[in-house]
């Protein structure tokens, strides 16, 4: 079976660096999310720009997925929306490290193994 020849678009898309993919993914998701929240709240772009103290042109870039926002700008937007637009996963912490039995023996050397019944 012949594989379908890739289009020029598909070939160029394969060359997009991973960090660019991540950046555009986040810009797009943030733009869609903010637009959705503004629609739910019945806020126009102009009204929201006034609420955040941002220029309309700057907000327009954010809402079209073309801005590289600082944490400060993200925080300003979140405060004005009353909702988070990004979240950071909780860091898992283990207070007690998980050792294997062999490591305990090395550490404590003197610990004798429990007597095990003979198999018969």
């Amino acid at each position, binding site marked *: 079976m012949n594989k379908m020849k890739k*289009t*020029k*678009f*598909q070939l*160029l*898309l394969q*060359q*997009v*660096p991973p960090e*660019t*993919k991540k*950046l*555009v*993914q986040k810009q*797009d998701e943030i*733009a*869609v999310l903010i*637009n959705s929240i503004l629609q739910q709240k019945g806020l126009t772009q102009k009204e929201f720009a006034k609420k955040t103290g941002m220029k309309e042109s700057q907000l327009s870039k954010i*809402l*079209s*997925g*073309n801005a590289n926002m600082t944490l400060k700008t993200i925080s300003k937007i979140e405060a004005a929306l009353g909702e988070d637009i990004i979240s950071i996963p909780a860091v898992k912490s283990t207070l007690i490290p998980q050792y294997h039995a062999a490591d305990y023996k090395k550490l404590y050397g003197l610990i004798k193994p429990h007597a095990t019944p003979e198999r018969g």
Partner: protein
Amino acid sequence: MNFKFTIELVQTGTKASLYTVRLEGEKQSEFDKFLSDSDITTHAEFPALLERIDNIINKHGCQDTFFKLKESRLTDAVVALWRDNIRLYCCRYGNIILILGSGGLKYTRTYQQDPKLLKSIQIMSNVSEKIDEQINNKSIKIIENKFWGNLDFTNE
């Protein structure tokens, strides 16, 4: 201006389909011309624009937030996909179909001041007008995220 053209499918995604325009007698489609323009492909934001197109067809659909709307006339479907000063002119049909044309780098205040951008928009405006006529007389239908019907406008 009146152009003769065919509409060709480029790719179908989970959220939208991409088409392009091939002018009569031309080897390359309008979108392929855009992808072959070294002024555009060497622009720092070109890879991001490609990724945006991929996200549009596979994740978000052709939501109006990603486009500069009403780039041509108020009554037609011509919009611009953009990244920095790159402009890719398209015809947008709801969130489900995008016809990609060509474009270029915008250095002028308006597209009318740039002959290359102006021609790109004129082509897409013509495409929009012809497709609207065919949709209105039911020769072309939009079903799910595809065009159904005659997409050959070379005999107009």
